[in-house]
């Protein structure tokens, strides 16, 4: 017989008794309305049109393609990521609003796949950004893509898919790998450290020697000068 004192009391979210219900509800809704930004870097992109359109139809799962990173939830990396492309992928990833999820499709995102020997492609995507899910294969069929997306939905619903927090908590690690590949002057237009403070996700690994290096040469971000026509004219001398 267990006395009433032995029943565990969940101390977090003490204030509102409905908070956990809301959390559950929010996670449910979040997992049922996913917009994907497909960054088609390699050959795996060819499996996405059938997955999106009438044959396999990922919209019945509530997943739709989206045009801009600001509005997207999932970043699909389909195929090998060349080092030039990786810079753009990281820019895109940092532009996305949290919570955000990354899926690496094809073997190339796991370890370089058949391009493992190439000087021009990055090998492990999860060294440069946190990856929620890999769908291995060369290339995975639309069924596998859909199965992977369903698995991601389950993980979002159960609250396990929170690797985006890892990017803020361990920013120094990711930045270090990026600097190793792109040089010490690497800087993105997004201020991750300020963002981490905003989300209250400063962890032990957020700041370190790599972020110090970044702060040394970081140029303050300035808004672009919005002018029409002026730059297009020939300089008159």
């Amino acid at each position: 017989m267990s006395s009433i004192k032995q029943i565990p009391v969940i101390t977090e979210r003490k204030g509102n008794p409905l908070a956990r219900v809301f959390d559950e509800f929010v996670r449910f809704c979040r997992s049922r309305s996913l917009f994907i930004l497909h960054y088609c870097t390699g050959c795996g992109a060819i499996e996405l049109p059938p997955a999106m359109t009438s044959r396999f139809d990922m919209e019945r799962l509530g997943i739709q393609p989206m045009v801009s990173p600001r509005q997207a939830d999932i970043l699909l990396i389909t195929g090998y990521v060349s080092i030039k492309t990786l810079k753009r992928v990281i820019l895109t990833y940092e532009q996305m609003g949290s919570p955000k999820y990354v899926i690496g499709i094809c073997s190339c995102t796991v370890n370089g796949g058949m391009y493992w020997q190439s000087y021009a492609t990055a090998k492990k995507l999860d060294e440069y950004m946190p990856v929620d899910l890999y769908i291995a294969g060369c290339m995975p069929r639309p069924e596998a893509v859909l199965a992977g997306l369903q698995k991601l939905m389950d993980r979002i619903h159960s609250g396990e898919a929170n690797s985006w927090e890892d990017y803020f908590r361990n920013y120094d690690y990711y930045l270090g790998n990026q600097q190793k590949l792109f040089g010490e002057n690497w800087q993105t237009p997004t201020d991750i450290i300020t963002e981490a403070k905003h989300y209250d996700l400063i962890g032990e690994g957020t700041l370190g020697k790599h972020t110090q290096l970044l702060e040394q040469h970081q140029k303050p971000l300035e808004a672009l000068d919005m002018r029409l026509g002026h730059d297009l004219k020939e300089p008159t001398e």
Partner: protein
Amino acid sequence: MSQELTHWLDDLLEEIEGIKIRRKSSRRVRADVPADALPALLELLQGRAGYIHLSAISCVDWIEDDEFELVYHVWSYESHSLVSAHIRIAREPGVYLSVYDLYQPAGFFERDIHEMYGIHFEGSPNMEKFILTEWDGPPPMRKEFDSEAYVNEHLNWQEYNPPWLQELIAEGGGVIIPPEEQRFSRKKD
């Protein structure tokens, strides 16, 4: 008609000194010429035989012979035939003449070859970086550039061996490459 053209082309090509012609098929001709005779050959082909389309310049690195091979593929829309002009140049210093004044698309091909092999084309309009704008290593298509060593030095690799694959291999399935057939070294963490 086509037979006549063939003879006519042969007669034309005989004008170049030191040329070796091999007929690969009815519409493909391979011509090996000394490096200094190539501009004259291309000028003949373009001006008098209608080979107005330079479809590609390819490059082969023969590191054992210490030579680069450049192959100029020119196509005629009139006779529907392709002439491949092969030349060899010394690997050092790796300099050759541009054919930009004959065929303008050559500018792109030469820029690409310059980037990938480090051959300098004199008179080419632009020898800037083309595709590898963010690459500052050696020209990567040269044979002495060891891509695998570069990868092992700069990038990490991870094994992909999930449980379901291990089960398959235990049952005798999967793709197993025996050690003596593994051609490449993989960096172990």
